[in-house]
């Protein structure tokens, strides 16, 4: 059994209107039926563009937002059904690292106080001495100097702050860490340091990660399994290498072709699938396949009327597309006019 299993999780936010009576006039379908499982010791990467519901899903696992329906089973317990106090205690084993390291650290608490707070709340460590020893141990693990303890968040650089955020999660000895955009606020040279650190920690401490990010290259680098989200639901899920080698869902293909690769030779030679238009509103999602309004492979039948389920197509590869097989073997081709071959190779030396 997997360590963390999500079963048809839905998070709908009501849209209210009116002064006296809070009439609910509709819902924002932020997460609309996501099922996935995360194996112990592995990294599950969740990618998608802004507004696809990936962050909400991560927060729903920790019940930081209310789950409308569905189950979140962690190590045999359904977190969705736990009463408040028990949920609070369960959070020791499920920790989160946030995107904005400065925004998620209290500017008026020094590092020691930030790191101790969680331990006291969960009753870890017999006395202050023991807690301090443990904090120093973790600080060394995340690569911060011991003298950091008496300093405040503003005294650190972005990369160091993210290390503090990671240390805060680690002092509680969690099993699962949910990393919500752990490196997107950092410069690339610092990004690599933090990504390497996350990998080292996973190896030495046997952690399980759920990494939420918009950067497909980052997610591919650290994940064992990747789930691609679009407008509140998973459209494709596969082991990292397989997803890259054989993306089956049109959205995944478009997303991959849009990610710039720092290599002019690759950039000049590749074909871009340009999507037209913007993401539809999650308050008023399209009927049928959520992606059909922008899909270059859209067909006359099914796409606009029936919502495709996530089907297993072998090798742990799941796709939610009616025509995945036909697209893969080339019987269905992309609508004309959508594609633009990459810029013509120019006459540069080398």
């Amino acid at each position, binding site marked *: 059994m997997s360590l963390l299993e999500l079963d048809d999780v839905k998070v709908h936010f009501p849209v209210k209107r009116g002064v006296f009576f809070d009439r609910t006039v509709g819902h924002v379908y932020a997460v609309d039926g996501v099922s996935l499982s995360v194996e112990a010791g592995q990294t599950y990467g969740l990618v998608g563009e802004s507004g696809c519901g990936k962050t909400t899903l991560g927060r729903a696992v920790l019940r930081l937002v209310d789950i409308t329906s569905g189950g979140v089973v962690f190590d045999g317990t359904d977190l969705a059904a736990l009463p408040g106090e028990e949920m609070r205690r369960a959070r020791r084993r499920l920790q989160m690292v946030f995107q904005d390291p400065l925004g998620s650290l209290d500017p008026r608490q020094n590092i020691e106080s930030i790191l101790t707070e969680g331990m006291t709340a969960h009753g870890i460590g017999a006395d202050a001495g023991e807690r301090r020893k443990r904090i120093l141990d973790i600080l060394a693990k995340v690569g911060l100097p011991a003298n950091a303890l008496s300093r405040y968040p503003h005294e650190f650089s972005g990369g160091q702050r993210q290390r503090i955020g990671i240390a805060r999660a680690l002092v509680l000895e969690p099993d699962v860490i949910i990393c919500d955009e752990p490196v997107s606020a950092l410069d690339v040279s610092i990004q690599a340091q933090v990504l390497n650190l996350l990998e080292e920690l996973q190896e030495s401490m046997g952690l399980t990660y759920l990494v939420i990010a918009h950067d497909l290259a980052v997610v591919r680098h650290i994940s064992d399994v990747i789930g691609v989200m679009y407008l509140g639901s998973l459209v494709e899920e596969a082991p990292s*290498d397989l997803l890259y080698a054989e993306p089956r869902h049109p959205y995944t293909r478009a997303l991959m072709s849009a990610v*710039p690769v720092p290599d002019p030779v690759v950039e000049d030679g590749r074909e871009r699938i340009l999507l037209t238009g913007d*993401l539809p509103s999650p308050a008023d999602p399209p009927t049928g396949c959520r992606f059909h309004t922008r899909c270059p492979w859209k067909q006359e039948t099914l796409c606009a009327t029936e919502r495709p389920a996530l089907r297993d197509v072998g090798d742990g590869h799941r796709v939610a597309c009616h025509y995945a097989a036909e697209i893969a073997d080339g019987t269905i081709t992309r609508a004309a006019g959508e594609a633009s071959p990459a810029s013509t190779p120019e006459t540069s030396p080398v």
Partner: protein
Amino acid sequence: MPLLSVDELTITFSGRGSRDVQAVAGVSFDVDQGQVVGLVGESGCGKSVTSLALMGLLPSRGVTIGGRADYDGTDLLRLSTARMRDLRGSQLAMIFQDPLSSLNPVVPIGVQVTEILKRHRGMKGEPARKEAAHLLDRVGIPDPTRRLKEYPHQLSGGMRQRALIAMAVACAPRLLIADEPTTALDVTIQAQILELLKELVDEEGTALLMITHDLGVVAGLCDQVNVLYAGKVVESAARRPLFAAPTHPYAHGLLGSIPRLDAPRGEPLRPIRGSINDRIDWADGCAFAPRCDSYTMECLTGTPQLTEPHTPGHLARCVNPVKHEMHGDGGDHGNTADLKKTEAGS
């Protein structure tokens, strides 16, 4: 003669009671007609400040600007405010990172676009509105006449950036400066905007100065790339040689730190150690030396100069340039650095 020639640009910020900060410490580069030139670097390298100085957008108090920026025979850094205003919008235009804060939230898009047409092209009334609609249509905004009446918050992020680009190209500028134009956007929208910029350069012959931290964007768009570190250009080359054989250890390290979509999984990243805060003054030596894996005592003796260590036209500011086995024509001997060829060489 290049359209824009920046020569030894220096920008220093001084505040009462605090130490002077030299954000740009002597940056030189050229931009030719119809060329896309990239300024790449991480936060704090001086790339945005450079663009603001070129557009005359830095405050006059507390800022000291040195060097020259020759545009078509005039030095942009020494133009009067009135003359600069004439150039800005008509011949020079700029696109900023955050499209929402670059637009006035309480004025409809149409008014903001026609304002430029009024100021620089003397158009008004119906013709101006028609032209504005045409411009929005040109940058791929559907139903432009309706969009003209809308306010910025009614447009999506990609749409707003398109509107800003429409405003920037309204007077067919000869030089367009784009400061992180796609950083706030999703990748699929980023691809659309980059495609649009490419089109504008190809069709109108506009010169584009692209300021970005994203080496992937540079690889697909720029003809000439300048890598900045701590306010100086540390490497400058055409994009193919730069990516195939990054010569400055910083550029080399930067490429090694980026997770690549097409790289096999499990290949470890090679981060640059430390952060931008670990630097020394250029006057004392190489600012990158404290983070560099191949530094020697030589690096700490005076400012290194931009030289052509391996190939002509490929400039690097380093005394121990990275050696590349395959591309190291003539540079294979007398080199203390012995770093392996980067995987970027395809």
